[in-house]
């Protein structure tokens, strides 16, 4: 199993906690997925903290490690302050760092991301940077103190899958020893399997499960996809070829013409 900042995690599937039809369905999806890490957020409270308390009680029941995010932050200051509040609220140095650069694509702002990653790493955070598949940016993030890379598969919530397979393969090849999680954009278990076949260490998704007609079933589907992809990667797949080659031996074939 992969290790992130020295912590071995029990599954290569990580799930978000947003958009589920009900708390019970969220819990069921986590049970059937086997996910060991749940992404969480923090938001303004309007009812004296009861909604937050209820949600926190639910997460604790799941028995998973939490990965707080800085979702919705568009500036370095905003992301850093949010991370500081998240560290206290969730009692973890882990932070999924999002610094959004574009409102429509939710593409990371590479410059703000790097600056925030450096500030937070220097302050003892263990940063999971939500980044593009840009290898130069990845190198800078590692230099800034990140020990994990979290490239997007596609824009958040789109379900488009892996829109830049070449970029992800290049990133994996350039940083073979760095724990890598494909985050965002996955819509189907086959896309998770494809990511795992490339040798990434884990995948993180939310909407594809939460917005499915049967979230718990989809969660299990993703778990199986992740497992299938990992097995395929470890099994050293055959090289594709252009010309056909018979699977069945030709020698010994009956002569019937």
């Amino acid at each position: 199993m992969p290790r992130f900042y020295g912590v071995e995690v029990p599954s290569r599937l990580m799930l978000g906690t947003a958009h589920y039809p009900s708390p019970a369905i969220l819990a069921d999806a986590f049970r059937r997925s086997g996910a060991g890490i749940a992404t969480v957020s923090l938001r303004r409270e309007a009812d004296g903290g009861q909604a937050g308390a209820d949600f926190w009680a639910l997460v604790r029941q799941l028995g998973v490690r939490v990965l707080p995010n800085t979702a919705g932050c568009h500036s370095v200051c905003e992301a850093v302050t949010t991370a500081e509040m998240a560290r206290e609220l969730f009692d973890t140095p882990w932070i999924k760092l999002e610094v959004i650069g574009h409102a429509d694509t939710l593409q990371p702002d590479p410059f703000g991301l790097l600056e925030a990653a450096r500030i937070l790493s220097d302050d003892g955070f263990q940063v999971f940077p939500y980044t593009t598949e840009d290898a130069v940016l990845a190198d800078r993030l590692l230099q800034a103190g990140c020990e994990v890379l979290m490239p997007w598969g596609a824009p958040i919530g789109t379900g488009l899958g892996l829109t830049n397979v070449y970029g992800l393969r290049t990133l994996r090849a350039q940083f073979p020893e760095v724990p890598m999680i494909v985050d965002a954009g996955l819509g189907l278990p086959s896309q998770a399997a494809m990511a795992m076949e490339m040798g990434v260490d884990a995948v993180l998704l939310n909407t594809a499960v939460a917005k499915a007609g049967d979230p718990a079933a989809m969660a299990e589907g993703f778990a199986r996809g992740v497992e299938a992809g990992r097995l395929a990667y470890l099994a050293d797949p055959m090289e594709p070829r252009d010309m056909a080659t018979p699977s069945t031996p030709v020698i010994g074939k009956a002569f019937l013409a």
Partner: protein
Amino acid sequence: MKITVNGVAVEIRNDALPAVLEDLGYADKKVATAVNEDFVPAAARDRVTLQPGDRLEIVTPRQGG
């Protein structure tokens, strides 16, 4: 005096941050705070006195992806 709490103008009776949180119903709740966009750790709330017009943010655990 009037401050802004989570983007909404609020009239408060006390100026000490712990008292304000208690008055707003957060005394025993799992919250994190920031004043004027600066994080205020729980251990430092005792030392914060709010001024008129200050912006107080109170956040709690929520669903996220």
